[in-house]
């Protein structure tokens, strides 16, 4: 496998804009205890052949962002602002019926749990056939089935001709996730959203699924949004990274920016707390103290402030997601510290980490 991704040419259509553009996306939910602002102003663009990782913990808003792109968070108690454009086409204002056409055929989504996202009473093949025919009823049953076999083969299911008649329970976890990906690819979408696609899988299977996603991304020019909490997974496949915390993007940059020159203390903390097999083990695992904030009761100013050992007066104001490194306008973060200070503060025993408050 080549290390330099050959970016596939952008599909012609709708001018020179990005394939997917998310602008100032805000998603709020009315709950019994008050309004929860799950996503608070997220911006990003995605090009064909690119893998964008959204990293964050539970409650950071990463999954809600992804679900909102394909309209899965629409409900009477949700409030969605901002814009999501696919090849220039606004998705947030589309009717449910119009969105149905986008889902699957233009944007596919795969979920964390391959056990519950397949219907247990239908064969895997029938579910893929159904997905194909739901979008184009002119395709006959037998040719749809042939397609299903082909797709299962393409995602690496051995003996696809026979396994197409299996029920989901006859598949292992990794095979189910492959089947989900096959189903997602059935309509040749241009964007794949993978929400924690490997979290429920064993490491050896995880590596296979990640390579599959990467292959598809390169061979088909499939733009991919990978949602994960695992920075190891990110390092394996992503081109660009968004780090989310408390509904906001706190840092964004290229893969190397995030791993080798991280600007936000939360990113330092995430990197520092990893147990790494490629390094000698530290005496004590650097940890981030405290717990992720409740979205009902976010701290004033920087949301990471209560857990941050480097907090100072200015942190009571919300920092903007700005380029703070003069040499790199695409690397943005929300931290008031000076880049020079950051370089000193993040260095702990020769590796990047977050100092523990004493």
């Amino acid at each position, binding site marked *: *496998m*080549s*290390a330099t991704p050959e970016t596939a040419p952008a599909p012609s259509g709708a001018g020179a804009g990005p394939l997917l553009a998310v602008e100032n996306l805000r998603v709020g939910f009315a709950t019994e205890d008050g309004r929860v602002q799950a996503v608070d102003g997220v911006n990003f663009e995605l090009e064909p052949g690119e893998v964008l990782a959204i990293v964050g*913990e*539970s409650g950071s808003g990463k999954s809600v962002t992804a679900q909102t792109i394909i309209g899965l968070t629409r409900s009477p108690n949700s409030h969605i602002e901002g814009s999501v454009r696919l090849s220039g086409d606004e998705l947030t204002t589309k009717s449910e019926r119009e969105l149905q056409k986008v889902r699957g055929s233009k944007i596919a989504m795969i979920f964390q749990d391959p056990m519950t996202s397949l219907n247990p009473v239908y064969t895997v093949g029938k579910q893929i056939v159904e997905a194909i025919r739901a979008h184009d009823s002119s395709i006959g049953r037998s040719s749809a089935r042939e397609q299903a076999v082909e797709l299962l083969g393409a995602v690496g299911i051995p003996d696809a001709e026979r396994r197409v008649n299996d029920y989901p329970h006859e598949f292992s*976890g990794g095979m189910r996730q492959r089947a989900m990906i096959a189903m997602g690819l059935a309509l040749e979408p241009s964007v794949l959203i993978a929400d924690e696609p490997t979290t429920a899988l*064993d*490491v*050896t299977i*995880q*590596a296979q699924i*990640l390579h599959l996603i990467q292959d598809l991304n390169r061979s088909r020019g499939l733009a991919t949004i990978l949602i994960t*909490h*695992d*920075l*190891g*997974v*990110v*390092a*394996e496949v992503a081109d660009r990274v968004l780090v989310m915390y408390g509904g906001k993007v706190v840092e964004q940059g290229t*893969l*190397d920016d995030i*791993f*080798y020159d991280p600007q936000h203390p939360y990113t330092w*903390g*995430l*990197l520092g*707390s*990893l*147990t*790494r*097999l*490629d390094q*000698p*083990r530290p005496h*004590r*695992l*650097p*940890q*981030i*103290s405290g*717990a*992720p904030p409740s979205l009902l009761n976010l701290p004033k100013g920087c949301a990471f402030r209560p857990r941050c050992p480097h907090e100072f007066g200015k942190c009571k104001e919300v920092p903007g997601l700005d380029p703070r490194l003069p040499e790199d306008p695409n690397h943005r973060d929300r931290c008031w510290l000076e880049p020079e200070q950051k370089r000193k503060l993040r260095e702990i025993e020769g590796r990047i980490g977050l100092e523990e408050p004493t």
Partner: protein
Amino acid sequence: MSDVGSTSTAGGPLLEVTDLVKHFPIKSGLLIDREVDQVRAVDGISFSVNKGETLGLVGESGSGKSTACRAVLQLLKPTSGSVKFEGQEIAGLSRRELRPLRREMQMIFQDPYASLNPRKRVGQIVGDQLKIQKVASGKALRTRVEELLERVGLSPEHYNRFPHEFSGGQRQRIGIARALALGPKLVFCDEPVSALDVSIQAQIVNLLDDLQDEMGLTYVFVAHDIGVVRHISDRIAVMNHGKIVETGEADQVCEHPRDAYTKKLLAAVPIPDPRESRARRERAGTTG
């Protein structure tokens, strides 16, 4: 596979497991169940754990690591084999005979949501066993529970709260307080951090580390994440298909694995270093 373990510590191993087997029958038939086959969940494993050390047990799902724990603790009746705790054979003991041993051996579970009774208050969850084992009651019990809560990083005021009022990390702390209430010698930690947020995992790992130092605990730490296991363990045993395929010092196993399965497992762990993982991919691309 036999592993006598190092005998450097005085007094010999705290736990000695020899040829432990746990098979589950697969039954078939309408009226009369006939045993047609067996699932060999644990298929003859031997290991020992010395006092004060941490033995890591790694393997993928279905490798039998959780079943092994439960069979050692006699929560599942082993099919055969011997489990010696402080030299005393405990395999095959009756429930009544096991009861005093429950003080000595405890378990921390994976899912902090499913492992706490939602109808009980925290004080009860942590303190009930003190009552059952007649260790403390009344005011003394409450004081003991409050101390424990404080020790695991919660506050004594949490005594009267219900589990749903806590986050995942806090619930795992409650589970740890419960496991430590009777002052056990040996604690089985079954995937204690895999259900937690990344920033919380390190907190719990460090807490377990601190508690081990303070209370002289011995751990059997079961997890699929070999990175976490290596961090916390002195020795590691790798399980695959119900058997232990490799044991050794933690760093030794991770840096110089001998068994093919261990190598495969280590190679699959993503490295959180883009340059390193790119280089690894290239190596794999040229050799594979």
